[in-house]
């Protein structure tokens, strides 16, 4: 009896061992690789995760939780439904992987052969992306209370430099990563948020949403600047850096969760610069319908929708859906012109704590005429565990966390832009603002932005009409007056324009923009001394700005004070090395001073800033020609002619440059092109004659000189040339 039992036990043990060998799940073989690939970017010492999973001992401590949160798909955090948009850095486990973790935990979390375990990944204790070029730090950290609801706080970080920089990457390092759900950065071009909260901004301002004043230039936000625990570094794609100018602020909006003890809420932002300005210009576009948010208490399925027709071909690069605590299901899709439905994202169960920007693995092409739709469903019943109100109350849109939002942001890159067409982002802006106005016809923001887009597209009469409509609703509004003035100026009605600027300055004496535009108008209309006065007032009263210095330089130049002008242009370049006016005019001054090589360097900079500026290319060609770089001059002149084919001067200059490099036939063709545009130019005929003579076509040359003399009987050169011609 005894020995039989012993034998039986041995057999059973043998069977167990065999099974374990076949399919044992161990840390070293299966679990460590899975954890290192999916978990440890957050779960490492000092990381954003609440505990580390780098070692076997760590993982064993948390094994039971790992099995629970992976099977419920709470971890890794990922909200979008698979198959509705193909996203980069999609972080999900397969069913098999989840089963593997469960089995490992059930079988006692064996380590296996420790020597076969992969080496744990290394995480820097400081900057993951290396030493930044500039570090901004929250000036006064906020003490997050030990307990209570989550807190949303906005910290202002002024950009301290006096030069413009392009940012190719950014890293955010919260002082205590564990307490940060996520963070968003906004660029405040006009420091408007700081000015709106003068007593408070240093401590941070509470609030989930904020509005900033984007200023007068059409300069739409281009990049999502979003931090989440597993993505501390944001590296922008090639050619798409973002920009910071002197006077800009970064606003860091942090979603903070109390930890049980008072915590220091602070952060450092590391910026990595590039010298290369953007070669591609994406834009952030918004769908929203906050006005429709009026959700009765108890309502379980309240739907909010918006749709936006896209007026140009675009690639969608990223998407950022946003609601607060009542949001449940989020859908976004595009209906293509052929009625095909293309999903952009589906989030079946929204959770604000895990919100994120999602970037597409490859850009999603939407042809012109596609319509982007958003459809959000809200649950304001007590069955929604996220409901901030017990019992539920009526909820509308607002920036407190207990209010709601219905926003969908897209990062789009216009593609297939026909040569010579206006900035496609203006068409996107126009479509966006028209859509907004349809929802709220009296809102000053879309009225103003629509008019600005139209003005920038050169549609001045329509822009002027919309500015006037905005002024009728909001009389005396500083910026609208100024922009109406600018549109009038550009439409040619500069007298009316100057009246608007003066009206704006009289009503708002501190205004810098109207004064700047008035000064520019005066400069343009031979009122240089008036312009000088305005620029000097601005230097005393307005924030340091490269364009004020370069404007003053241009006024001084017009008044004949070349040295003083040069000093102002240099001051402008100190602030912004890319200031076009300063580069262009300094280049011109260098040409006049007989320094063509120096001029070429400056004018190259000007052409980089405004590749479509014909004058700049023409001046650069002259600088090259005078430096003996004839083939470079030819290239610039050809570019200029592509931009302005009906300009005879350009053809004439190209002819000259070609002739000096021995390309006689092409030079003749260009001189003829010039004459085709201005047949009565005696110099051109004379020069054509010279070229024909060199080519051995004496009869033609004679005809050309005679034609020159016919147009200008006293043309000495033509007469001499004619006399020197050998008999034909």
């Amino acid at each position, binding site marked *: 009896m005894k020995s039989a039992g012993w034998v039986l036990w041995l057999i059973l043990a043998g069977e167990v061992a065999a099974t374990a060998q076949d399919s044992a799940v161990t840390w070293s073989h299966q679990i460590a690789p899975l954890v290192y690939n999916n978990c440890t970017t957050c779960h490492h010492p000092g990381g954003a995760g609440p505990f580390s999973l780098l070692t076997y001992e760590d993982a064993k401590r948390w094994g*039971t*939780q790992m099995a629970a949160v992976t099977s*419920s798909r709470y971890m890794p955090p990922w909200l979008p439904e698979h198959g509705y948009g193909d996203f980069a850095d999609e972080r999900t486990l397969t069913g098999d992987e989840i089963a593997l973790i469960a089995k490992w935990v059930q079988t006692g979390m064996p380590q296996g052969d420790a020597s076969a375990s992969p080496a744990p990944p290394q995480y820097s204790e400081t900057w993951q992306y290396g030493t930044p070029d500039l570090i901004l730090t929250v000036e006064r950290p906020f003490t997050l209370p*030990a307990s209570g609801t989550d807190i949303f706080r906005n910290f202002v970080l002024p950009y301290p430099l006096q030069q413009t920089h392009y940012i190719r990457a950014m890293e955010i390092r919260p002082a205590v990563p564990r307490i940060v759900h996520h963070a968003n950065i906004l660029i405040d071009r006009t420091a408007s948020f700081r000015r709106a909260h003068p007593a408070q901004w240093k401590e941070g301002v509470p609030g989930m949403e904020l509005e900033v004043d984007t200023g007068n230039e059409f300069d739409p936000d281009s990049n999502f600047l979003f931090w989440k625990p597993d993505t501390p570094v944001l590296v922008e794609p090639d050619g798409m850096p973002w920009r910071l100018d002197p006077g800009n602020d970064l606003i860091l909006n942090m979603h903070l969760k109390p930890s*049980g*003890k008072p915590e220091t809420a602070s952060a450092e932002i590391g910026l990595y610069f590039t010298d290369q300005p953007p070669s591609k210009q994406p834009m952030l576009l918004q769908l929203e319908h906050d006005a429709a948010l009026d959700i009765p208490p108890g309502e379980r399925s309240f739907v909010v929708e918006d749709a936006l027709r896209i007026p140009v071909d675009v690639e969608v690069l990223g998407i950022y859906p946003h609601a607060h605590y009542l949001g449940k299901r989020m859908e976004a899709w595009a209906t293509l012109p052929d009625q095909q439905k293309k999903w952009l994202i589906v989030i079946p169960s929204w959770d604000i704590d895990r919100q994120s920007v999602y970037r597409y693995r490859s850009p999603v092409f939407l042809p012109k005429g596609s319509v982007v739709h958003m459809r959000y469903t809200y649950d304001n019943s007590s069955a929604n565990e996220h409901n*901030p109100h017990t019992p539920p109350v009526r909820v509308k849109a607002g920036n407190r966390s207990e209010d709601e939002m219905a926003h969908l942001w897209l990062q789009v890159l216009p593609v297939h832009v026909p040569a010579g067409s206006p900035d496609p982002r203006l068409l996107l802006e126009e479509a966006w603002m028209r859509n907004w106005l349809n929802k709220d016809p009296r809102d000053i923001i879309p009225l103003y932005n629509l008019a600005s887009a139209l003005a920038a597209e050169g549609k001045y009469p329509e822009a002027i009409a919309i500015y006037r409509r905005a002024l009728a609703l909001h009389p005396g509004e500083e910026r609208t007056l100024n922009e109406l003035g600018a549109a009038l100026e550009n439409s040619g009605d500069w007298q009316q324009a100057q009246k608007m600027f003066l009206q704006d300055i009289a009503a708002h004496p501190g205004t810098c923009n109207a004064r700047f535009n008035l000064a520019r108008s005066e400069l343009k209309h031979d009122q240089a001394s008036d312009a000088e006065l305005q620029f000097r007032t601005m230097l005393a009263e307005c924030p340091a700005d490269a364009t004020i210095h370069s404007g003053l330089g241009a006024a001084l130049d017009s008044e004949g004070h070349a040295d003083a002008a040069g000093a102002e242009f240099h001051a402008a370049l100190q602030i912004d090395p890319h200031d076009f006016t300063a580069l262009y005019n300094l280049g011109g001054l260098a040409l006049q001073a007989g320094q063509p090589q120096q001029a070429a360097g400056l004018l190259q900079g000007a052409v980089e800033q405004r590749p479509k500026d014909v004058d700049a290319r023409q001046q650069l060609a002259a600088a090259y020609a005078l430096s003996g770089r004839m083939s470079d001059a030819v290239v610039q002149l050809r570019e200029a002619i592509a931009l302005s084919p009906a300009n005879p001067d350009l053809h004439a200059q190209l002819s000259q440059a070609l002739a000096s490099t021995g390309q006689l036939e092409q030079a003749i063709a260009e001189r003829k092109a010039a004459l085709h545009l201005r047949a009565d130019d005696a110099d051109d005929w004379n020069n054509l004659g010279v070229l024909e003579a060199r080519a051995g076509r004496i009869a033609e040359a004679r005809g050309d000189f005679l034609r020159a003399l016919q147009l200008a009987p006293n043309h000495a050169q033509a007469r001499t040339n004619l006399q020197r011609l050998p008999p034909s």
Partner: protein
Amino acid sequence: MPMIALLRTGLLALATTTTLAVDLDGRPVTQLAPAGARAVVLFFAASDCPISNRYIPEIQRLTRQFESLGVRVWFVYPNPGDTAKVVRAHDQEFSITAHTALDNKQTLAQMAYATTTPEAAVFIPEGGGLHEVYRGRIDDRYLALGTERPQATRHDLEEAIRAVLAGKPVPQPGGPPVGCSVVTLQP
């Protein structure tokens, strides 16, 4: 809401010499209920469990509120990694001044049937022993790992303590405790 007068009928008859746990100086804890106590609350905590830590202010609030009414609150650390040194540093970090017990043999966890941190148990002193009348979550802020209300709507533990003090039937938790499993002791 389920109302059960007594969760478990078993009494813990404890002789004063029985070592239940140790304090931070290694001295045995033999008596959970001081003389005259009307209730004993054990708060099962883990120094490395985020949800457990997030409940510390709430437990301290309850301690302040009910201490003078005869309620003795203990922070109980059942995990083997929570040594005296670790817990002392943790108590200091979180400004915990309450009575602390290291449940190094998990005697208290077994006595209370606690499996999770954070989890609370309420006992009534009865005939020289302790009688468990409540065990479970502190409130309903966490419904599952990853499912969290912006704030609690039901304070289960507080309701239980109030019921005990009022001599009323003790309401039972409306949902499971959510947090980190108590780590099994290695033999």
